[in-house]
């Protein structure tokens, strides 16, 4: 009986990510120290996972739907700069700065989505374009308006409430954004796996033409997903600016590869149609553990890239195997 339930677990998209997570945790406990599982250690990778995870989930949903969004690499710092410029440099109320940051994410997402559904240009190229365009705009405006590429946002200007909600360390080391990540993941799991809306995303990634013929508003859904990823990216940037009291143009490019790695390790099929939010969640944690775990070992930190590379390849191979198991599955004759 228990072997049966293990089999059914292995057929799920998140199986590979879960096994991968167990493997890397074991690896770092063996080669590193257990302090990496003590609160300060946990905080180090949970913080990375939360910031990355809030972006990785919508990026993964886009991938399930058959699209890519790499413009998040510029939208994250742009969101940070927006809130810092509006509320820090110009001393406007913090809610205006936050609205500005999220509004910017919304606009970038709308542009990405509309360009993708209106033109036949692949979303990789469209968002490559907006990646550079948004980065250029952020740099240009930052220098033009403030004379610098690093804009301060003092805690006084954020105010205690906003600081507590979006940019504070809980217990000295846990970023409050972890709570946002967990809450958002729960909401995503509900809408993607338990509501009809989720079915549409999978259908769209499986076969866009059939999905449209079946009456799914594929264009609108594509735009919504792009808006979701850009707004999430701007949200993460905004939280970072509030947390660190400063916004910088450069921070963000690493998110592009890191989010794609998390999503693919999480069992999402690069060509769309298959994956799960839980998988992306575990993939993100796995990535963060490798990314931070290296500091708890005696290895030089440069080795972490090697581990991530190997982990990615192993995860993809494993996910292929599990997907084939899922395809081949048929109930046994009783």
């Amino acid at each position: 009986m228990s072997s049966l339930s293990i089999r059914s677990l292995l057929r799920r998209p998140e199986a590979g990510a879960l096994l991968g997570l167990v493997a890397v945790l074991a690896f770092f406990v063996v080669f590193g120290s257990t302090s990496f599982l003590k609160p300060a250690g946990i905080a180090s990778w949970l913080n990375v996972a939360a910031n990355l995870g809030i972006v990785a989930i919508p990026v993964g949903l886009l991938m399930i739907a058959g699209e890519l969004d790499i413009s998040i690499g510029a939208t994250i710092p742009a969101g940070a700069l927006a809130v810092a410029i509006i509320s820090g440099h110009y001393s406007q109320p913090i809610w205006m700065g936050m609205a500005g940051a999220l509004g910017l994410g919304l606009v970038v997402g709308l542009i990405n989505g509309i360009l993708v559904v209106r033109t036949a240009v692949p979303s990789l190229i469209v968002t490559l374009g907006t990646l550079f365009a948004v980065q250029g705009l952020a740099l240009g405006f930052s220098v033009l308006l403030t004379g610098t590429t690093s804009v301060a946002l003092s805690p006084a200007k954020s105010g205690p409430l906003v600081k507590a909600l979006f940019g504070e360390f809980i217990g000295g080391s846990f970023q409050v954004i972890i709570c946002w990540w967990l809450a958002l993941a729960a909401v995503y799991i509900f809408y993607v796996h338990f509501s009809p809306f989720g079915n549409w995303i999978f259908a769209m990634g499986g076969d866009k033409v059939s999905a449209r013929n079946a009456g799914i508003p594929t264009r609108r859904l594509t735009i919504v997903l792009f808006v979701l990823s850009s707004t999430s990216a701007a949200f993460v940037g905004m939280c970072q600016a509030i947390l660190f009291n400063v916004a910088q143009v450069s921070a963000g490019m690493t998110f592009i590869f890191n989010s794609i790695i998390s999503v693919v390790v999480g069992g999402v099929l690069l060509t769309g149609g298959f994956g799960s939010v839980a998988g992306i969640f575990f993939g993100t944690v796995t990535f963060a553990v490798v990314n931070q775990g290296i500091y708890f070992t005696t290895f030089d930190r440069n080795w972490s890239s090697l581990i991530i590379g190997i982990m990615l390849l192993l995860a993809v191979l494993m996910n292929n195997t599990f997907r084939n198991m899922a395809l081949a599955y048929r109930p046994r004759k009783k």
Partner: protein
Amino acid sequence: MTTPILELRNVNKSFGPIDVLHDISLKVHAGEVLCLLGDNGAGKSTLIKTMAGLFRPSSGSVLMDGKPVEFNGPREAQEMGISTVHQFGGTFPLMSIGRSFFVGVEPTRGFGPFKIYDRKKANQIAVKAVQEFGITRIDDGDRLVGGLSGGERQSLAIARAVHFGARVLILDEPTAALGVKEAAHVLRIVLEARRRGLAVIFITHQVMHAMTVGDHFAVLIRGALAADFKKGEKTREEITDLMAGGEAMAELEAEIESHLKSHEGYSPAA
């Protein structure tokens, strides 16, 4: 004589300067299988796409139940009961049978923003619908569509179309990629759909398949309706000749040699 479900009157279709369909008039009745025959490039797919709302006729009219209709896209045709099943079923390989069956019309429980996709109900209805078509091997709605055989997928797609109220079922070469046994399955399902009173339009290149299920045959040659006859009105040889583009096969075979030389094995019939 009853009114046909679907009728084409003097339909022409051209893509820019290229005329593909010439003056096609055709009637399809309920409980009848119309076999659409013709060589590669004769215009069969174009004809059914015009019926299914993917193309608008350049001139001429489409009538349903005797009334002229104009479809703005395949959705509208589908809502009026014209369903097309594409080769491989046009379904979603990595989705479960239940989920793909109900794409776009998911059954739900709960209310407002907390509507939950009703997996049990979806699986149950989907499996029942397929089994009613005689595919009893499908008994678990959680199986992925991609794990089904080609014939099972076709059957699932046909069962889905029928479940959602199709009155005209259009099948573009459903047996083309199938083995003998699988093809027989699909043919049986075509007959079951007919028994339920659907009109079936069936495209095939295989004479045997056509003769097994067809009640009514229409042959297209270079976009024109070259023959339109009922079952039993023509012999197998005559049908074969017509399907080959109206030339006697013996003559054709003699030509193949020279054709192969000048066209590198491919004979365009444009």
